């Protein structure tokens, strides 16, 4: 998701902002831009965390291979047929499109929520980088049992230093890091693939017989079951997770900001290279790293809590040595950079006196503090589902506004038509399903990603109902 933020920011900076206007024909980009963008930006820091977490959650290899294929395909179809058509028609950013419907006041609230969530995501990426920085110093990454427990003193200090550096650079040199991320992208994709190949060799799975038997993976899952208790991450969960991990971007329509520069809706297919190069290949390769560690050094795969978890720095170092350390540091850093930058923009919108620099530092500080809690990154599978649940619903509202407002007889772009800063119908339609969704996730233990689509549908339906019943005609 943060990769898409970077994409949107880079497009804006290259083409002029067009933050509150339609992107003119002259600023539209060719297909190659989008293919290149998606290719480079979905093999990132999050992949080093998410991939191993699949194995740590007990996913079977067969379910992973099939489930990620289906889920990522669904994600591509969502970008292509849900986001891109609206983006090329309206040519607005998500923020301005939402403002036109919901009003500036409600958009500020959306931005605040988005900014806080970004900070937690960036915090997880600070942790990812810190796991690699700690390797040469012999500092271990451990996940405490208590969610709000800190790691070791040394690791916490590394997180604070890494977070501070990332924050200052994001505030002072966003463009520089963004350019650096572009340079790193092809190299990173290649290194992810290398991780997978080396991991297979470490497990003795570099022949057809071993690959077909899958014993190298099954024994790793058995180890996980022994240490973590009976856990299962079945086919359905894998499909839903891989489909909806970027829900804020596609269902939530955040990628209107990217595809508004597209000449036609078919450019939505460009997301496929990101999904299959990044989320498919990179996740599987990262998961293989954990399987290899379990095979070669099982004692290292188990944390202080006695459970198998994901330690990206250790995993990559064991496979690739110094290249592994470098790739994890860069992956976490280049993913945190746009996330902190965008969170800073959101905070600046709420507190203009902070200025861009101050707001970005504030976002970086929040992210760094979040990163000091290892469970934030360890719970990334649940977090991205919660993220999509909270933000996805606004996409349903944008969808019905775009396609159904005239047909069903309620005002298109209500806030701008009636000059209001707060569209009550949007607030209710968005937040009621979110409240129910969060209750189901935290109160009833629902797997977070399962709540995304019901909340999206509920928001869309509720907006139609409230728009027709409580809004002025």
């Amino acid at each position, binding site marked *: 998701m943060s990769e898409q933020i970077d994409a949107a920011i880079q497009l804006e900076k290259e083409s002029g902002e067009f933050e509150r206007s339609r992107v003119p024909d002259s600023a539209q980009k060719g297909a*190659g*831009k989008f293919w*290149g963008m998606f290719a480079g930006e979905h093999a990132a820091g999050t992949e080093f965390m998410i991939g191993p977490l699949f194995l740590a959650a007990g996913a079977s290899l067969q379910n992973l291979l099939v489930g990620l294929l289906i889920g990522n395909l669904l994600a591509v179809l969502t970008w292509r047929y849900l986001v891109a058509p609206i983006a090329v028609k309206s040519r607005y950013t998500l923020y301005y499109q939402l403002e036109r419907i919901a009003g500036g006041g409600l958009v500020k609230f959306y931005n605040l929520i988005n900014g806080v969530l970004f900070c937690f995501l960036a915090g997880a990426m600070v942790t990812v980088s810190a796991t690699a920085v700690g390797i040469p110093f012999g500092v271990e990454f451990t996940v405490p049992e208590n969610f709000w427990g800190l790691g070791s003193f040394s690791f916490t200090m590394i997180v604070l230093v890494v977070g501070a550096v990332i924050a200052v650079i994001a505030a002072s040199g966003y463009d520089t890091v963004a*350019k650096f991320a*572009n*340079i*790193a992208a*092809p*190299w990173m994709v*290649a*290194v992810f*693939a*290398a991780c997978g*190949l*080396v991991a*297979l*060799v470490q497990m003795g799975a*570099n022949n057809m017989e071993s690959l077909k038997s899958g014993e190298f993976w099954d024994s790793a899952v058995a180890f996980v079951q022994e240490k973590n208790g009976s856990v299962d991450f079945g086919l359905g969960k894998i499909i839903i997770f891989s489909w909806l991990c970027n829900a804020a971007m596609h269902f939530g329509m955040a990628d209107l900001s990217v595809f508004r520069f597209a000449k036609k809706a078919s450019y939505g297919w460009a997301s496929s290279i990101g999904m299959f190069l990044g989320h498919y290949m990179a996740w599987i390769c990262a998961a293989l790293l954990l399987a290899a560690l379990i095979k070669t050094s099982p004692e290292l795969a188990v944390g202080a809590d006695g459970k198998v978890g994901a330690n990206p720095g250790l995993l990559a170092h064991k496979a*690739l*040595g*110094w*290249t592994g350390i*470098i*790739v994890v540091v860069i992956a976490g850093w280049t993913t945190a950079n746009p996330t902190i930058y965008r969170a800073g923009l959101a905070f600046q919108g709420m507190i203009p006196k902070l200025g861009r620099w101050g707001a970005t530092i504030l976002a970086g500080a929040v992210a760094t503090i979040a990163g000091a809690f290892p469970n934030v990154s360890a719970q990334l599978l649940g977090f991205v589902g919660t993220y999509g649940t909270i933000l996805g619903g606004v996409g349903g509202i944008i969808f019905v506004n775009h396609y159904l407002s005239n047909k069903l007889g309620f005002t298109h772009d209500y806030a701008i038509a009636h000059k209001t800063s707060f569209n009550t119908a949007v607030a209710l339609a968005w937040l009621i399903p979110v409240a129910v969704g969060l209750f189901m996730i935290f109160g009833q233990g629902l797997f977070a990603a399962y709540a995304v689509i019901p909340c999206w549908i509920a928001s869309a339906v509720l907006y139609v109902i409230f728009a027709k019943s409580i809004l002025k005609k």
Partner: protein
Amino acid sequence: MKKIFSLLSWVILVALIIIPPILHYSGSLDLVMMKNLMVAGTVAWFIVTPLWMWSGGED
């Protein structure tokens, strides 16, 4: 000049980042040598690539 650096970058990527792990997978290259080649390739990539990609280079 940018085209030469661009070509050099891709040669570095293929020769030092992509091929070594493939050779290691096939049993033709030991792990230590593979790691050394990849580190060298990483350093070379980040020296050469900014020379053509920094200001926009190839799209």
